[in-house]
């Protein structure tokens, strides 16, 4: 059993690492604006699928990692992701049974929440955000959500993460 738990942990960590790679992968300029918050998406998924394993703490650590990765203010993403995980944990029992399309809408709201926290903290440290494109990443995340769920679900079932 503990071996299984260890493997599950490994799978979760690996998915987050892959998300990290996607976050800093160079993209052409037009796509940069719409780069979805991959790590946030992965966290939403794991929080919904295995809420007993991935919670606020993991999300916070993942956020901290992303801050370091992006050379941002340490703790900024961590705060946003911890909040995100908290909300997802509150919602997961309901959202889990929704059809994918409806889930995607919820995800849009959740990602917008993350963006909101980012804008807010950016504002606190006097770093205004380019305001015209802030809504693109959540939308991109919403469109990607169904595919991501199918993929991650396959991964989860294959490795038996519980």
């Amino acid at each position: 059993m503990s071996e299984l738990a260890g493997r599950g942990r490994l799978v979760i960590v690996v998915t987050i690492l892959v998300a990290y790679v996607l976050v800093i992968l160079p993209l052409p300029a037009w796509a940069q604006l719409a780069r979805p918050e991959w790590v946030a998406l992965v966290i939403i998924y794991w929080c919904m699928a295995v809420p007993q394993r991935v919670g606020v703490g993991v999300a916070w650590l993942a956020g901290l990692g992303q801050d370091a990765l992006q050379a941002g203010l340490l703790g900024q993403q961590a705060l946003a992701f911890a909040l995100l995980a908290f909300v997802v944990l509150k919602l997961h029992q309901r959202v889990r049974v929704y059809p994918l399309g409806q889930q995607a809408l919820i995800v849009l709201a959740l990602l917008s929440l993350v963006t909101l926290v980012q804008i807010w903290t950016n504002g606190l440290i006097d770093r205004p955000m380019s305001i015209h494109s802030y809504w693109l990443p959540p939308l991109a995340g919403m469109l990607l959500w169904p595919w991501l769920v199918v993929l991650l679900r396959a991964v989860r079932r294959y490795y038996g993460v519980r």
Partner: protein
Amino acid sequence: MTLDHRDRLTEPVREAVHTAVSPVHFTVNLPFEISDYLSETLATRRALQQENSRLRDQQLLNAARLQRLDELERENIRLQGLLDSSYEVEESVVIAELMRLDLNPHRHVIQLDKGSRDGAFAGQPVLDAHGVVGQVDTVGRGTSVVRLLTDPSHGIAVQVTRNGLRTVAMGSGNLRKLELPHLPNNADIEVGDRLVTSGLDDRFPRGYPVAEVTEVRREPGLPFARVIARPYAELDRSREMLLVRTTREQAEDPELPAPQLPAEQPPEDTVPPAEGLLPGMTPQDRGTPDTSEQPDAGRAPPAGGATEGQP
């Protein structure tokens, strides 16, 4: 946590975490490294020969120029020695290569493949072939993050080469623009003026080209002129950067009596406005202590006789 980062308290934590995630950085950079390597190894003999001869010509040209420069520098050091001012003699550089990553979209930062292992440190000036690029923000073991000149929270102490007017150039968030917000309407500055580092911020060595003034607008109703400059460095194109380490030949001595006239910077007409402005502008750049240019108190070279003959 977030507030903590106003100051530099958590620097070690930052470094540690940065080092911890650097494998991810390397992973992302790897395909580009490979493609570079391949394109280099697979280049044709002919192309290599051409490039070689071109570089040799260039080298010859540079060597010729360097001879003159050496002479000038020696003379400069001698003169500075007469004036008894501090002068950065030796600047050793480390060549670093840009890692192709998209970092934070809201900041102007880039990542280089040299870190504390190679002697990089936070606050270290970074140059490219054309001018100042920025300064090191965070160092990890093998990588470092560089904040560009144009990051909105970055400021650099500059000087107009034409008349020695000193001011601060702030980042604007646009890669092609620097703002000089602290110049009064009657300041002597024109389009086409060259701005070089003045060295007064204790970060950047003196005399490196920073930017060229591209726009000066004086509105009678406003106290400050609107001055825009374009950085010389190719911030979004250069791939090789230089990390500069300066060794000050003669450290400032705070115990020496307050300066009379700065010996190396005599123009009286430009100093007073600058002094009046500087205290007022420091609150703007809270996050970056590097930008706060000190009013002249401790800065000016120690007055008095030649305590040191030959630098």
